[in-house]
């Protein structure tokens, strides 16, 4: 699964897939994949703090899919792919929830301390690139890229 514009923006060589897993879109399943995400980020050369940040960004994205995409209906699935690039890690999250219009996704302003909209804000604060696509064959595809330290 790739997108030419995204890969061009990342300006990095795609090396290999580290993890590919499909799991039920349930709130108690996200914790099962956190260790694999952290280890994968470390394998891509990210520092420990940055690797834990990537875990949080993926966690927040999964929460958005479960709560807003599938409306907490337990029947859906999430497909996660972690890809090693020469300069960092690309995360792909695919779901079969109703199509999301990226322009409707809002995250909070910096001075806003209301309890909501924090997840999307954290995703953008942590990752260097966050893009939404229509997935080939239907559903939504979220691609996020995190650059490892010391690369441009």
């Amino acid at each position, binding site marked *: 699964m790739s997108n030419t514009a995204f890969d061009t923006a990342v300006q990095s060589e795609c090396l290999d897939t580290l993890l590919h897993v499909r799991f039920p879109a349930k709130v*108690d399943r996200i*914790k099962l994949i956190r260790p694999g995400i952290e280890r994968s980020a470390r394998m891509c050369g990210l520092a420990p703090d940055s690797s834990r940040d990537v875990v*949080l960004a993926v*966690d927040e994205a999964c*929460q958005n899919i479960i709560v807003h995409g599938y409306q907490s209906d337990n029947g859906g699935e999430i497909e996660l792919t972690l890809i090693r690039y020469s300069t960092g890690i690309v995360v792909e999250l695919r779901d079969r929830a109703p199509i999301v219009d990226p322009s409707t996704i809002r995250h909070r302003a910096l001075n806003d301390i*209301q309890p909501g909209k924090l997840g999307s*804000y*954290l995703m953008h604060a942590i990752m260097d690139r966050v893009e939404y696509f229509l997935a080939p064959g239907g559903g939504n595809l979220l691609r996020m890229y995190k650059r490892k330290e010391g690369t441009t």
Partner: protein
Amino acid sequence: MTETVAQITNRRVVHLAGEIDLEHAPQVRKVLLGAVEEGRMILVDMAEVEYIDSSGIACLIEALQKARAISADLALIAVNPQAMRVLALARLDTVFAIHNDLTSAVQAAS
């Protein structure tokens, strides 16, 4: 995730431990809001919080806002580096009063 609430003099101390995530946020929210209703000074001990995400942070924000609305105080104590990093990413590390431990929190309030 576990939580306990203790009364120390006139302060409610909520001890959170484990993963404060979307699965456990409803339970944390209930405990925090309950503590705010019952005390004028609420201290949230986060030393044993292993993981916190936006839903956990949202619980803390809601409790802080409720405390402020009734002129109560809410502070965080013993926030570990991982949780502090999430608060900083969310730019909330300056919104909450944060103390190293229970003693310094009590001293700050007196």
